[in-house]
């Protein structure tokens, strides 16, 4: 972790343009504390679309701070149109390169810039993330985001994808899905074992279930598809009740105190139950 370039060290030890702009014309806010790094970028933009001031706040490691500092220097004085063309690789190059496993710091910078410019142009929320199917549930990374780094940075392995955008760096359950995306982008097979979910036939239409069958399938899906992943993180989930299409569960262990529990509820528990049991199910947490 100490193989930072002199430029990275220089920007980390003496970060430029740290702070806040009182009435910014654009704000971009990406990452989260749970993920280990976050960046809030604030811009002043004049009537000609020129960036006249840049400030930021960042929570993260040495290279995250350096990447934010580099970005601020790179876009200062540029027009919005010029700034928009900056890629994560440009940020890494500006710093004389980043260690492979720290490339996600440059991606964070590019994402913050994009969010800020989007906020400037459309008035979208500064933390608005493009909607899409979440592939990596540990870090909340969408298929679209993965596709983008795979294409733009010409990535060929799951490990590279993890280094660039963190996807797949947690429970590793999404590795087959990431492999499938890489394969889809490059049109070549990356793994013999990878489940190629995107090529799967759509599941056959489901027959109506009796209540008993439904409860059994819900329990089975929870046991096989959901609980192992949660248990790996020290959590658990328990089926409390099924009333028609309303499923009530209760989180245990770590999940009960996890900040992302609501996300787990909708994006993991409900998604799996809908996939394996019935599209009509709605999952709620016992209060």
């Amino acid at each position, binding site marked *: *972790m100490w193989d930072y370039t002199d430029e990275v060290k220089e920007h*980390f*030890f003496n*970060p430029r343009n*740290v702070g806040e702009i009182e009435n910014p014309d654009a704000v971009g*806010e*990406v*990452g*989260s*504390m*749970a993920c*280990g*790094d*976050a*960046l*809030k970028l604030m811009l002043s933009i004049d009537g000609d679309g020129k960036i006249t001031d840049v400030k930021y*706040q*960042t*929570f*993260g*490691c*040495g290279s*995250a*701070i350096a990447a934010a500092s580099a970005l601020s220097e790179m876009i200062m004085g540029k027009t919005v149109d010029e700034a928009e063309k900056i890629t994560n690789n440009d940020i890494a190059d500006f710093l004389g390169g980043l260690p492979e*496993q*720290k490339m996600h710091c440059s991606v964070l910078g590019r994402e913050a810039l994009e969010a800020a410019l989007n906020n400037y142009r459309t008035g979208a*929320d500064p*933390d*608005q*993330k493009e*909607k899409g199917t979440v592939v990596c549930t540990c*870090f*909340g990374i969408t298929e679209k985001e993965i596709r983008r780094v795979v294409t733009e940075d010409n990535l060929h392995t799951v490990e590279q994808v*993890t280094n660039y955008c*963190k996807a797949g*760096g*947690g429970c590793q359950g999404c590795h087959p899905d990431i492999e499938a995306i890489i394969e889809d982008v490059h049109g070549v097979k990356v793994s013999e074992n990878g489940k190629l979910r995107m090529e799967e036939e759509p599941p056959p239409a489901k027959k109506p279930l009796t209540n008993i069958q439904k409860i059994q399938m819900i329990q089975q899906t929870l046991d096989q598809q959901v609980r192992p992943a949660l248990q790996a*993180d*020290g959590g658990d989930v328990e089926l409390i009740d099924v009333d028609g299409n309303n499923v009530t569960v209760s989180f245990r*262990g*770590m999940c*009960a*105190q*996890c*900040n*992302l*529990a*609501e*996300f787990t509820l909708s*994006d993991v528990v409900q998604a799996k139950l809908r996939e394996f049991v019935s599209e009509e199910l709605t999952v709620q947490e016992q209060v």
Partner: protein
Amino acid sequence: MMKNVYLDNNATTQLAPEVLEEMTPYLTNLYGNASSMHTFGGQIGRKIIEAREKAAQLLGCSPEELIFTSGGTESDNLAIHSALELNPDKRHIITSRVEHPAVRAVCRYYQRKGYRLTEVAVDTRGQLDLEQLIGALDEKTAMVSIMFANNETGVIYPIDKIARIVKSKGVLFHTDAVQAVGKIPLNLAATPIDMLSLSGHKLHGPKGIGMLYVRRGTPMAPMFYGGHQEHSRRPGTENVPGIVGLGKACELAMEHVEKENIYVRELRDRLETNLLQNCPNTRVNGDTICRLPNTTNISFEYIEGEAILLLLDQLGIAASSGSACTSGSLEPSHVLRAMGVPFTAVHGSIRFSLSRYNTQQEIDYVIRELPAVISRLRKISMFSPARGVDVGIPAERKPRLDVAGK
């Protein structure tokens, strides 16, 4: 500026000068092989016996109960492998959620091979859920492996009690005592532990040498096959300089264990108390009562550990962190996460681990310099107690703020 304030002794320790002195002849003119018939070899054999006796004295066991290995990782592997190999019908392992990777990864390897694995949970202090451990023991349990003391938090587990519970069910008990040996007194004669791992370089001995204690009468299956060394339980020509060094390190540990518990504890407490006082939004992770005298794990909330370490390094201060960015992966410390340490704190956790070579002058230097490092990074950070974690998480995944107190 003060250079080299080394506060990372749970990672590795300075070789004691006395140890180096003892080892040097065996790296120079006393290079014989203990197995040889000539005088060159003979004098080596006697030295190995002597080293084994010194280690046995430190641990309160018999010399023949000790096997020299290449270190803690090998000892852990050997213990688990042996226990499972000799109990092929029992396919259940119990360990904890906070083990060192040298145990955790081995157990998970066997889990992938089809073994049932119970990883016992810990509470917010990092103490084990003994009820869960007792409930998990069954007729299929081949072994239980619970660490003596945690490398990240310093939390000491009630190993004597656990060993008695496990033995009462007739199950093999192993403990990874790599962090405990030399820091707290041990007496294997009084505790029904079957196997115990230790490592030389954690107690001012050399790297590349460790031991596995195997209680007399406990069957043992080797991982390696080869010569007769260590009664064929661990073949291979002895690492003589390492063994001699470890013996000396054990002898020194006996002399210093009291100092470790008075002098080092005082320094640690001085560091901890002052840092907590001088840096707001700071917390200690783990049980502060049942804890190694040399370790403190402090979370500086709202900032990230690698950044803290880089700035400390610039000041000549060496410590380590449980943050994701320092783990070599993207995942923050599994130990702190198992304890339910919130994300606001886990990424900013710093472990200071002291040794008898640290001085009060060094500790005061850290106390003086660290608050500025923390406030410097907090000025850059977007998070603060006022803003909390309700920041930066995409709207559709906004955390429920009510769950924290649940």
